[in-house]
């Protein structure tokens, strides 16, 4: 019984994370009918943004609650901006083209973020370039060397993992005779639920949300009705990316190891969660995320933990075979 409760606790906290990421996929798919391949990498960038903000503020040395909030806001702003830029520069110019074109671009963006972040820092790269130029007998002017020396020494982070500083002290509680819950779990769950409620309110109670649903239903007609389609799509990207950033920080609280390819697996799994819930459906993404988190935790807990990563794909195959439109998805008939 205790074991089951423990798995429920762990599964829920994992599931809310998947749900937050899956929301980004599902909203973007809703308005653009595009699987935003780079979404998992936006999540990765969120973790690094939080890491850089935290090191700039000195969270490692003197953590305070105010700094933790600043880290959150900073990372959310950076991921939101990244989402905006990706949409504006890579996807918008291709909107009228076949869907495959946008998809290939999305894959390109995803790999650019993953491998761009694995490059050595700009200062090291500049030093290498300087060395190579000198080797070819090209003199590097002094002002250029001075400029090189001012390039960031910590960005891009390179392939070695970093460790996220703890924003506040970890406290473990034992409740109900043996179930371990930490304050990180509680905070993470509350924050995740808070953001999901906020999202629900935005999507169903505000003018922006109404416009978003209209664009998702039929972008052309929505445009004819005076809805600024481009702005709504940008807003959707920003919203989804911000949620991915939040998810990254919540994960980094309990699993502090971050590296440039950390977004790959959570991204794929959240995509599975979105498909399971019915891609394009906001409540579907939440239910899908929770189901995946719980399922993974149960399978890992009761059988073998090496099956953990397999359960998502087993779930995906099952859904695709039995009900490809997902739990909450509408059955759409393709019309010519």
């Amino acid at each position: 019984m205790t074991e089951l409760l423990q798995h429920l606790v762990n599964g829920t906290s994992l599931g809310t994370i998947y749900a937050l990421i899956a929301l980004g996929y599902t909203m973007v798919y809703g308005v653009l009918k595009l699987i935003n391949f780079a979404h998992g990498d936006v999540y990765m960038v969120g973790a690094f943004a939080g890491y850089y903000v935290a090191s700039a503020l000195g969270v490692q040395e003197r953590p305070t609650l105010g700094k933790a909030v600043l880290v959150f806001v900073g990372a959310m702003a950076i991921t939101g901006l990244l989402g905006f830029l990706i949409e504006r520069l890579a996807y918008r110019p291709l909107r009228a083209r076949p869907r495959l074109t946008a998809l290939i671009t999305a894959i390109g963006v995803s790999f650019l973020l993953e491998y761009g972040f694995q490059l050595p820092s700009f200062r090291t790269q500049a030093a290498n370039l300087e060395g190579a130029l000198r080797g070819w007998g090209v003199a590097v002017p002094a002002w250029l060397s001075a400029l090189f020396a001012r390039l960031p020494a910590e960005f891009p982070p390179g392939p070695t993992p970093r460790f996220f500083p703890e924003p506040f002290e970890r406290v473990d509680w034992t409740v109900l005779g043996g179930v371990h819950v930490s304050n990180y779990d509680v905070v993470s769950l509350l924050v995740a639920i808070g953001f999901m409620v906020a999202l629900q309110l935005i999507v169903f109670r505000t003018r922006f949300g109404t416009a978003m649903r209209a664009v998702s239903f039929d972008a052309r007609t929505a445009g004819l009705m005076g809805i600024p389609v481009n702005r709504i799509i940008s807003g959707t990207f920003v919203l989804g990316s911000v949620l991915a950033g939040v998810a990254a920080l919540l994960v980094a609280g309990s699993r502090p190891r971050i590296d440039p390819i950390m977004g790959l697996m959570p991204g794929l799994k959240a995509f599975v969660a979105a498909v399971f819930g019915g891609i394009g459906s906001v409540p579907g993404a939440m239910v899908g995320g929770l189901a995946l988190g719980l399922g993974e935790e149960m399978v890992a807990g009761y059988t073998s933990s090496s099956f953990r990563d397999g359960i998502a794909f087993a779930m995906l195959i099952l859904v695709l075979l039995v009900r490809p439109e997902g739990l909450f998805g509408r059955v759409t008939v393709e019309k010519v």
Partner: protein
Amino acid sequence: MTRGGFLLRSLAPFLVALPILWLAQRSAPADVTIVLISLGVNVILAVSLNVVNGFAGQFSIGHAAFMAVGAYTAAEITVALREVQIAGLPVEMSDAVVFAAALGAGMLLAAVAGLIVGVPSLRLRGDYLAMVTLGFGEIIRVVIENTKFLGGATGISGLPPYTTIVWTGLGVVATVVMARRLEASTQGRALLAIREDEVAAEAMGVDTVGWKVRAFVISAAFAGLAGGLLVHKIQICTPRMFTFVKSMEVVVMVVLGGMGSISGSIVAATVLTLALEWLRGLDQYRMVIYSLLLIVLMLTRPEGLFGTREAWDLLPRWLGGRRADGRAP
């Protein structure tokens, strides 16, 4: 088609290629041989992926996984049979028979893997497929990495160095002939119809899922062939060789050459392989360059170098050129 036409189109390329390949093998120094073999392997990969991504218009990005299945199968067989000598045959002949059987088995198992992956995922529209093939590709690699029998993360080493220019060249010819013949056949037309308009194709009675799965299986089999050839040159077979990066490389080749153009894939594979050979020192930038190449290509020239045309269509008509206008033949 008459029987003579069949012989001419399917067998003549092998007969023409064989003496050339043999001469190349005799005269090429060791470093050139390595480059030529990796070039051939990349051409096989690009042309076979083009069958799915180009002809059928289904975007698969898990090609390396099928390559891994073929490579591991072939490697297990040649390692197990390396001491075996078939009675009554000289050593080279016996080795060649073993290698051919190993490559065949690799293709077969890769095709089976393609079937297992293809049946559930190809029911979906194109954009799901990319994500699903990516996931399956990773899963296959993770399974290999955790299987003791296959050497785990360290893989299998000490493979016999069977792969030569002749073997690779014959593989290339087989792949290109397969792709050309497929494109011109009834099956190929069904695939092109699916690419151009899936709904219309289905309305015309084309079994869309069936043809897509078949294209996927064929493509997986040839990826397995490429894997088998590659590992018997570098004599080691590890899961790290078959990651995303490899799949991505092939995707870039196909997209750069033009999805649906066999000669485009060949040209792109050649250019990228040779460029990488010259830019060895910039290895860490390779994936960044690939991804930028993909994005810029999509923004400026999404049809790639050749579009769906072939290099030989651009020849003047008296040389056999068809001057296709970029549409499906």
